[in-house]
């Protein structure tokens, strides 16, 4: 059983600019008020520390900082991968977000894949020489089929 969320959208910018806006300027566009907030005090003001091992931090209204996750892949204009751990998660729980930037003419297609609990076992399987996805995806989710990929509706 595996689970991930996938969305994609085309934005009017080249991939480098789109990457810069996604990372450096996240506080300028991030929409708070989601069903699952990052902390009990809300989402706060988000900021990426650039580069691998950089943190995704949020600063709350009282000035307190909360680490949402850590960057594992930082390829400006191409790819960004970071962990995503809302305050409600237990220490061993984590999810992973992968953002890809692909040039399409004068625009960029940004796709986001948010992987839930299947992240760690896949790495584990890869380390032991099994092809990734094969064992986990064989057991396809009955409910996953019902998730409509918004990329189809909104993407290219």
């Amino acid at each position: 059983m595996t689970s991930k969320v996938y969305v994609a959208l085309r934005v009017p910018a080249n991939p480098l600019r789109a990457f810069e806006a996604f990372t450096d300027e996240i506080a300028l566009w991030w929409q708070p008020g989601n069903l699952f907030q990052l902390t009990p005090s809300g989402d706060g003001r988000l900021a990426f520390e650039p580069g691998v091992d950089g943190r995704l931090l949020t600063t709350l209204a009282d000035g307190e900082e909360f680490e949402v996750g850590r960057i594992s892949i930082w390829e400006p204009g191409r790819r960004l991968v970071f962990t995503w751990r809302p305050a409600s998660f237990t220490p061993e729980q984590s999810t992973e977000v992968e953002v890809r930037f692909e040039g399409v003419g004068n625009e960029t297609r940004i796709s986001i894949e948010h992987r839930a609990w299947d992240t760690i076992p896949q790495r584990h399987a890869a380390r032991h020489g099994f092809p990734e996805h094969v064992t986990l995806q064989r057991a396809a989710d009955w409910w996953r089929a019902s998730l409509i990929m918004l990329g189809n509706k909104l993407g290219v």
Partner: protein
Amino acid sequence: MSTDNLDRTLAALADPHRRRVVDLLRDRPRRAGELAEAARISFPAMSRHLKTLRSSGLVEEDRAEFDSRVRIYRLRNEPMTALKAWLEATETMWTRQLVALRTHLKKPKQ
């Protein structure tokens, strides 16, 4: 929806053997021994996984009709519904964020 319950569901599913159990129970209820065999792990190891799955509310235990000493495990739907809701909420969130980013990129850079 309770976030605590969802966290327990995610934690319970953070193990390949427990996900295998959930997949197996999707077909039909099964005995612990059957599950251990199918997942290729020892009976005590399977018992521990079943305990975790029970406390997360993902599976429930029943006595077999033909023999009350035999325990049968079956899947409960509620936690999966919570999980599906989490996925849908996450999808909605990223869609909102991407639309907001696109709007941001349409503005001239300051």
